[in-house]
């Protein structure tokens, strides 16, 4: 098991290298100049050039790259141009906000997706199946920003149950946090829940047709044991893979949601950084997020091995 984890970690290095190269190159390819952004509109060309030299942006591309990688090797992600603080510190400040929101959305996704999918499969071709699938279809086809807007208008503006936006840190006021991220989490989760419900349904239907389910019934096991033990234990194997993808999608979906609900998470941080051409912030922040996703995927692989003995013993 440890071997699997280590091997996966090693194979993640090229991924991180590639991502860092691409972001580094992209940032310098898109037009715009961080020095001009810092200097402001009234700055003279000399002042801008001075700032550019201070930031090392006047050096050739390759030299900048080597300089950046040199820093990375020493564990230094660089400083944000805009905020003048270490990229690592800033990211670690904002990441928990996004992770909290995504985790909340993941819990909703799993609850709604698994329940709807299992219920639909067990009650195939009944009204329950149809309702669950209509719900999933809505989740999949309504864009999350639109859903977010509708929820803001209905629940925040008209009914006044929830705040229209803004963010309350969990440590400061758990209930306030819960209220401030509920709508964002729902708008984020619904698409994924719809996908998960459909995949869970088809997986369960497939598993319920297997010979070992017939064996479980032939042994005289009660129905709930046949479904929630024998069938689910097998269905969870392919579902786990999908959940791994869903986690990545939730994190990237958080960018839009954070903007809509003005939540100061990593999405907002990086959007700002891109708009202001804050090169070190974008490069370092994305690298950290990618690293986190790689860890999540390794976790999923390990979970996969726990669920499937055939994988474990290979």
């Amino acid at each position, binding site marked *: 098991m440890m071997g699997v984890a280590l091997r996966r970690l090693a194979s993640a290095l090229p991924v991180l290298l590639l991502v860092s190269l691409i972001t580094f190159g992209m940032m310098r390819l898109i037009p715009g100049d961080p020095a001009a952004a810092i200097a402001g509109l009234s700055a003279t060309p000399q002042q801008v050039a001075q700032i550019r030299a201070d930031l090392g942006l006047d050096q050739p591309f390759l030299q900048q790259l080597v300089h950046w990688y040199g820093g990375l090797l020493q564990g230094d992600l660089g400083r944000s141009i805009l905020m003048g603080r270490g990229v690592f510190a800033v990211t670690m400040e904002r990441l928990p906000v996004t992770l909290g929101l995504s985790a909340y959305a993941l819990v909703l996704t799993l609850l709604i997706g698994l329940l709807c999918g299992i219920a639909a499969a067990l009650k195939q071709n009944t009204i329950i199946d149809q309702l669950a699938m209509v719900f999933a279809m809505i989740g999949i086809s309504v864009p999350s920003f639109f859903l977010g807007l509708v929820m803001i208008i209905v629940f925040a503006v008209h009914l006044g149950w929830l705040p229209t936006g803004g963010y309350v840190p969990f440590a400061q006021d758990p209930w306030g946090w819960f209220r401030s991220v509920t709508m964002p989490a729902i708008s984020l989760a619904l698409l994924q829940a719809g996908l998960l419900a459909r995949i869970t349904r088809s997986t369960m239907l497939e598993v319920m047709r*297997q*010979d*070992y389910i*017939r*064996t*479980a*019934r*032939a*042994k*005289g*096991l*009660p*129905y709930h*044991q046949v479904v929630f033990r*024998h069938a689910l*234990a*097998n269905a969870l*194997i392919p579902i786990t893979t999908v959940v791994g993808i869903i986690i990545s999608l939730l994190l990237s979906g958080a960018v839009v949601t954070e903007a809509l609900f003005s939540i100061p998470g990593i999405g907002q941080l990086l959007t700002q950084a891109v708009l202001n051409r804050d090169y070190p912030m974008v490069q370092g922040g994305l690298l950290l997020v990618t690293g986190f996703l790689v860890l999540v995927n390794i976790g999923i692989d390990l979970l996969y091995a726990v*669920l*499937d*003995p*055939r994988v474990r*013993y290979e």
Partner: protein
Amino acid sequence: MSLLEIRNLTTAFGTESGQVTAIEDISFGIEPGEILGIVGESGSGKSVTALTVMGLLPRPPAKILSGSVMFDGQDLTKLSERQLQKIRGPGIAMIFQEPMTSLNPVFRIGEQIMETIRAHERLSPRALRDRAVQLLAKVGIPSPERRMDDYPHQLSGGQRQRVMIAIALACNPRLLIADEPTTALDVTIQAQILDLLMDLRDELGMAIMIITHNMGVVAETADRVLVMYAGRIVEQSPVERLFDAPLHPYTRGLLDCVPSLEHDRPRLVAIPGSLPEPARRPSGCRFRPRCAHAAPACAETLPILAERAPAHAAACIRLPEIAAAMAEPA
């Protein structure tokens, strides 16, 4: 009194082209300790018969149109799913054709045996495990204590079928239904599994219903045989009598397909034509289009199963003519 008594059982499936009967008017019994063989081509309704008894057919599309399945004084066709769960295991147990896929791949084999016992009896964890180890030993799994913690994919096909048998035996069933238990296994393993089943019958006194399309398996194991064709029983006989004096032309055809050592060269004569789909069955006798002895009268009525000798019945209206034709030297 018979252990299992099936009367006029008809099971149908709802399909796109309407309702079709998979088995029709099936009647037979099994005595305690008896081994009953059921033979017939693929699609003749053997598995549907077994699964109807077990109550394991998906309903819908399956539907029992008529008949009764008496076991232990109860009509199984009238029981609820919950009541059937109590019968499955201690009353009737079943093993299947595909040992490779019949065990759950994510649970240890010991657990798959123990959960069967747990579903029907209260035992301490220690006693439960001991019983499971004993069962594995009984079905001939070497070093059973160690094997308890194996997963199905770590076992060969023959061993998996032994584990399936151990699961079936876990609650001392009075009837074991074995649906083509050896079809997926190679020949030497086949013989071992059949020997095991017969030993277990002698030791435990349970009845066995063994389903196969292999006449050799029937000859080796069964006391009595049912021959099914297109959803109906066409012949029923004690096993020696069936091989010595088959009556129905279909049975004769099946026996001709078996390589025989008594002849100089193996006679492998396949029956011409193929089994009609349930929706396309001919009028009158279902075997008529493939039968060398068919006469116009065969198209008119469905022949009924009638006793021609003690305990030996066949469903054919041309038996005297066929017997006469066979007696003449060709």
